[in-house]
């Protein structure tokens, strides 16, 4: 057995320690963190190849806001504990016969 060899547990420990040390060092060099943009339009932009132009951003923000009323009404409807949604999963059947 190689005396320099690490066990898997030791390897993970070493990796985590060095990663934490690197992260702490790089964080110390970073400028103060900006609060993350958690707006709905920012979430939409994360799907897009280029961010939405300002006018569209405004319209999407309005649409999301208007959807809130719908959601409030939907969320206020009492539901039985653990009631199932109205769809079923269809397991995919085997196409070939087993040999």
């Amino acid at each position, binding site marked *: 057995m190689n005396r320099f060899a690490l066990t898997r547990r030791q390897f993970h420990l070493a990796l985590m320690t060095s990663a934490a040390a690197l992260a702490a060092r790089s964080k110390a060099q970073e400028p103060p963190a900006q609060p993350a943009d958690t707006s709905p339009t920012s*979430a939409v932009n994360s799907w897009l190849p280029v961010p939405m132009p300002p006018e*569209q951003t405004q319209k999407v923000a309005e649409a999301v806001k208007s959807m809130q009323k719908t959601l409030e009404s939907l969320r206020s409807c009492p539901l039985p504990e653990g009631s199932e949604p*109205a769809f079923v999963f269809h397991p995919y059947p085997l196409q070939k016969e087993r040999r």
Partner: protein
Amino acid sequence: MSDDLLFLTVTEQAKLLRSRKVSSVELTQAYLQALRTRGTALRAVAEITEEVALQQAQQADKEIASGKYRGVLHGIPYGAKDLFATKGIPARWGSPAHRDQCFDYDASVIERLHRAGAVLVAKLAMIELAGAGGYEFAHASLTGACLNPWDTTRWAGGSSSGSGAAVAAGAVGFALGTETWGSITVPAAFCGVTGLRPTYGRVSRYGAMALSWTMDKIGPMARSAEDCAHILQAIAGHDPRDPSSSDVPFRYRFSTWRNRRFRIGLLPVDFAKNNATDAERCFRDALEVFKGRKMEFVEVKLPDLPFNEAAEVIIVAEGSSAFENLIRSGKVNELADQSQAVGLLSGLTLSAVDYLRAMRVRAEASRAMAKVFERCDVLMAPTLLQGALPVDRSLNETWVNMGGNGGFANLTGLPSISVPMGFTAGGLPLGLEIIGAPYEEAKILALAQVFQQETEWHKKRPPVAGERIRT
């Protein structure tokens, strides 16, 4: 060939074809001409399929002549909403972003109609993506705003706009439409034709554009309820390529239902509040027809559930998912109506928990509606409370006091038929809607057929039957 022939029902045309008084090629050529002239002027056409049509018509004539009669649809020319895959023929989904799209296979319904001997003469205009993101203008389509044959300053309705307009204008024998929320019943009512929205799952959606997998339905638009029954018979049934398609058999024979005394549930409608005097007059007259046939009436109240909200959340979430590629590519901004892009983009923010809550509300709604149908056979109300809307104005401004029964009925997958029930003072058609319990299309078809035996509204022809159309 007389224009009158083009306005006959499928059932009437079938008799002429079978007895070989008219050939399918003659009928097809006449419809092709009507499509090129008034169909195009109304912007009801996405693509005329002349080559395929003449080939299929010749085949039909040959088979009928040799005694191989396939049934009522054999040799009948029809149009399909441009969201069905048709081998080698463009399927543009009404969308500028899909203008070059063409599939190399046929949708299940196109296959089934081909097997029944029907002749595909056109792909018909539609609202882009069947209105997936919500649209503000009638011109939300690659082909522009589809005009109403009864008044070309009015809209044909959507999203199956071309299907409604082409049937009303005698430019096809019948048409296929689809409905997620109102897309068959609204153009049927606006254009004065008969439109059947089958139960969810009754017709395979394989090869049809998906807007909302759990809400989309395919159905016929035609000149009578009897025609709709024949067409549904041809397209209904399980298809392994669409796991949501049902194997509950559809059988319809008018003679077994014609003398049945149905119990009709009347949905509450506030005509006065909605300034709907024309709809009130026509609806009361329609009820008199059923009273004359000894039908029983019961007042029905819908369960207190957020039907519309649940339907909206499901459509928005599924629509944004269905068109994810379009959104990610940025091509969503190519759509004709920017409200559609805004709707599809905002749908990306919906949470999975809200979507699932909508689906749980839907399960409760289905159970609650089953209880409603313990008290009555069908539900009845005006399809909409007003006639067709102006074609050039924002629907945000004009879609007021419209009423409608689309939310609860589509959410719970109920079948429905809209039949012409009269006209506004301004000469625009109004529709009567009959809604059935799941898989009970036979009852709504029978009632619609009874109504059409006693009335002539479905036989009225729009003034736009000539070649000159003011646009």
